[in-house]
């Protein structure tokens, strides 16, 4: 199973095994990663699952779709590698992915 590293704000990083096909948000919630609220349950309707993808990984992960880009308008401290974690699916290619979690969600 691919491994994903979550770096919560000012806390130890958490490495978890992710199920292929699940979203990065679901992976975080299942493993009790702090800082991912996911109020809307993954429907791209709340922007409370915002993460900063490690720049080294951004190209592999890819840019957001227009709907996600719109939703990012509601997030806090959006950066060049910002994504909504509920819109990122885990694949074998993402083994080793590192994402950082902002201090606050929208």
């Amino acid at each position: 199973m691919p491994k994903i590293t979550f770096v919560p704000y000012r806390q130890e990083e958490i490495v978890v095994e992710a199920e292929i096909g699940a979203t990065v948000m679901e992976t975080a919630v299942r493993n009790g990663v702090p800082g991912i609220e996911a109020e809307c349950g993954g429907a791209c309707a709340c922007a409370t699952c915002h993460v900063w993808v490690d720049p080294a990984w951004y190209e592999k992960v890819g840019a957001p779709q227009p709907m996600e880009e719109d939703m990012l308008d509601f997030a806090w401290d959006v950066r060049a590698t910002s994504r909504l974690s509920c819109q990122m699916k885990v694949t074998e290619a993402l083994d080793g992915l590192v994402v950082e979690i902002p201090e606050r969600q929208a």
Partner: protein
Amino acid sequence: MSEAITTDVVIIGAGPVGLFAVFELGLLDLKCHVVDILDRPGGQCTELYPEKPIYDIPGHPVVGAQELIDKLMEQIRPFGPTFHFAQQVEQLERLAEGGFRLVTDAGTEFFAKVVVIAAGGGSFQPKRPPVPGIEAFEATSVFYSVRKMESFAGHDVVIVGGGDSALDWTLNLQPVARRLTLVHRRDDFRGAPHSVEQMRRLVGEGAIDLVIGQVTELAGTDGTLASLTVKKSDGSTVAVAATRMLPFFGLTMKLGPIAGWGLHLHENLIPVDTEKFETSEPGIFAIGDINTYPGKLKLILSGFHEGALMAQAAKRLVDPGKRIVFQYTTSSTALQKKLGVH
């Protein structure tokens, strides 16, 4: 205050569950008034995910969220519910002589025999943007809606957002503001194309300023805003003069006045029984996302079921003594007459 409205039932919340309750209550001849703080029906379906498909409505392999609301509106039309939109129910009190009195923030007053709370996650309210310290400026310099345009006259107005509200108010307030600045995260707007065009023309004419970036800091004293800091995508920052700020960051749900009505609450939800879906106060029912009971699922499907059982109990309260005959819409000519199909 206009004249008070007397009715069988007031339903608080026009989400899918409140709407379907009109149907179940209507079959039992109960007349409903429905109040919602939003300016249209649909609750979460319309406000949060109108374009998304729903796959677990029985009999509909797939139905769009807004489409479901449109169909519910059509389904309840025969019962002629009266809607009171853009109003929040603020007061709910039991009357000594029986029944309830409700008052909205717009001053509408109801006398109802039964109250149905179908308030979902609470009232939809504008979202507070995650800018540190913004609370200190709220209601003095930071506003989430425009009540009176004049109160923005002569001010350095900063509007934050990229949707229709942000664009509409940019266009409307530009003539009255001392200077108007629109701040948005990216140079791409979600609003209607003609508003975007108009906004860009004003920017071109130098009538307004457009700053692309995110607000990170507010500065001012004693609740009076003076300026704010915008961080651009290259990491540089600019200070923008601001004595009025209007952030448009979408809507979120807050329990609101319901907390003050003397009902038992459990983690912002209203506990009910599963026979009548009645709250701790007899005559006040709670259905849909707002209620809780062992095994509760926050599904539209569950809310529909709750509405059907609640209606039976409500009928007994409104018409005590009257026997309720169980009937199918398929075969009962009486029900079909009510639906206008017979």
